[in-house]
């Protein structure tokens, strides 16, 4: 119920900034348009790396961008929301309400994640309609499951990221390390197979690599849900390891900030 209150509050705040909402939607559209024309420029050229996915760069990058929304959010939204709450002055009062710190932190970010989830789902649905992805109902449901697992994985990353913001205010190593590496190694806009072997190995420890691969296989390579089970297992392992670690880090960070008396400082 409390989480729903956060979502309702954030929807109301988002709707009150209508111009920003239009700009955000426009920004996503423009970035997709850029990749559409890049794809068109090279249409007809055959790349061995894109062959398994129908050799269409735009379809390839569309899935990458839809999933990468979670990376951006996981790394910046939770930390960003905490920082906004510190700057705006709402955090201190929220902490005095009968609400657990985890509900406060997750609640503050939930709408950002839901809107990213809706954006990703919207991009993929539009792709499926206009680019004529041949998707079975089972594949669509598994794609939804992948998006949900990606959502949870990056929520855990977000909690880790927020822990650094709570303690150090500025300077977030999680954002630097995972942000840069996810975009570079995660096959968002180019296949990781074009990179040297050590980079390809490093990409295996990133959740986005598995999420994007599974989605592309389902939506573009017409694989069956059974084919993406290894990727799903890897995502689950990532969540099982990171969620408790993030939770411990967050607890430590909040206690330390409460001890230092600077929880609401920025």
């Amino acid at each position, binding site marked *: 119920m409390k989480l729903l209150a956060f979502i309702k509050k954030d929807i*109301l705040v988002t709707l009150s900034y209508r111009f920003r909402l239009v700009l955000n939607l426009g920004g996503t559209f423009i970035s997709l348009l850029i990749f559409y024309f890049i794809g068109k420029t090279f249409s007809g050229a055959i790349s061995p790396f894109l062959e398994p996915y129908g050799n269409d760069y735009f379809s390839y990058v569309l899935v990458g961008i839809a999933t990468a929304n979670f990376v951006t959010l996981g790394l910046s939204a939770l930390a960003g929301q905490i920082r906004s709450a510190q700057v705006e002055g709402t955090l201190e009062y929220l902490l005095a309400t*009968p609400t657990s710190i985890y509900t406060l932190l997750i609640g503050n970010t939930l709408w950002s994640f839901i809107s990213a989830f809706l954006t990703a789902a919207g991009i993929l649905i539009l792709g499926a309609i206009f680019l004529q992805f041949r998707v079975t109902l089972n594949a669509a449901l598994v794609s939804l499951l992948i998006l949900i697992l990606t959502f949870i994985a990056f929520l855990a990353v977000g909690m880790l990221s927020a822990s650094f913001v709570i303690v150090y205010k500025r300077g977030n190593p999680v954002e630097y390390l995972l942000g840069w590496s996810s975009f570079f190694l995660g096959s968002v806009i180019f296949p990781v197979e074009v990179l040297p072997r050590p980079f390809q190995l490093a990409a295996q420890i990133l959740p986005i690599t598995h999420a994007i691969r599974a989605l592309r296989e389902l939506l573009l390579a017409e694989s069956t849900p059974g084919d993406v089970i290894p990727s799903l297992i890897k995502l689950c392992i990532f969540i099982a390891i990171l969620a408790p670690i993030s939770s411990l880090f967050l607890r430590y960070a909040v206690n330390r900030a409460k001890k230092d008396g600077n929880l609401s400082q920025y």
Partner: protein
Amino acid sequence: MRNAISIRKLSKVYKIPSVLPWRKSRRVEALSEVEFTCPAEKITCLLGPNGAGKTTIMKILAGIILPDQGDALVLDRSISRADSAFRSRIGLLTTNERSFYWRLTGRQNLDFFAALHGFKGAEKRKRVSEVLHEVDLESEADKPFRLYSSGMKQKLNLSRALLGNPEVILFDEPTVHLDPIAREEMHTFIKEKIVQQRRATVLICTHDMTEAQKLADHIVLLHQGKVLAEGSMDTLRTRVKPGHRVVLEFDIFPQDEWLEDKRILSTRVMDNRIELTVVDPTVVPDIVEAAVESGGRVEKCVYQEESLEEIFSEITGRAE
């Protein structure tokens, strides 16, 4: 008398990092073994200048920061061990108007905070309407918060503090941005609605001596992180200067030795007036009668009580 809040040997040191990385961080002692109590269903004023440690105490009581040592018992529960649900028994009013969502209306703000207090659906709507009605803000509730005047913002702040029906309410400088009329309304509301009707315990932190003198049943004087004195106004007065001060002004000064055996602690004669400190103020009519019998003609008889400001200066002066 039952205590709603007991502060026990509370200490807090802040580490202030130096701007220059090669310099050591500075340690600032915000609280040093602070101890005081707040009687239940009464108004306690935590009084002290800026930097005395008042806000640190409020933040510890609100669960926002943790003490280094000591503990605070609120309604017999240790605040450091209390779970988040316990916080609904403590209301908080801060000066920080940025703790509201400016893009939302007053009602939408309260709706959100009511949900955090565990209210749902129709019960939530009812509670929000109740508190808005209580502070007389219902007609303005659907305006965006950003369009509120300072007085309206503070009313909304007050209604938010009341949402969880708290037994203890912490007020951090409640009238600091208010004009004299709104300030008076706030004082009346605290005394009549919160303490007399709801029977809640109120702790106000302020540096406004007049406000403290007007509202407080119990006063705690805090200076440089230490409690210098606590008690009622009378207790503090007695501590500064035992007895009651009376000034008599004469048209004709009485003859000598008229003041004997009247339980007078001290006298100070200045021209045609005499300043007396008596143990019991009921002896004053006898003193006046004795003066008249001794040929004096009394023009004026005034009880002079030390103001809180004088008491505070005296006590802090002694401490320094």
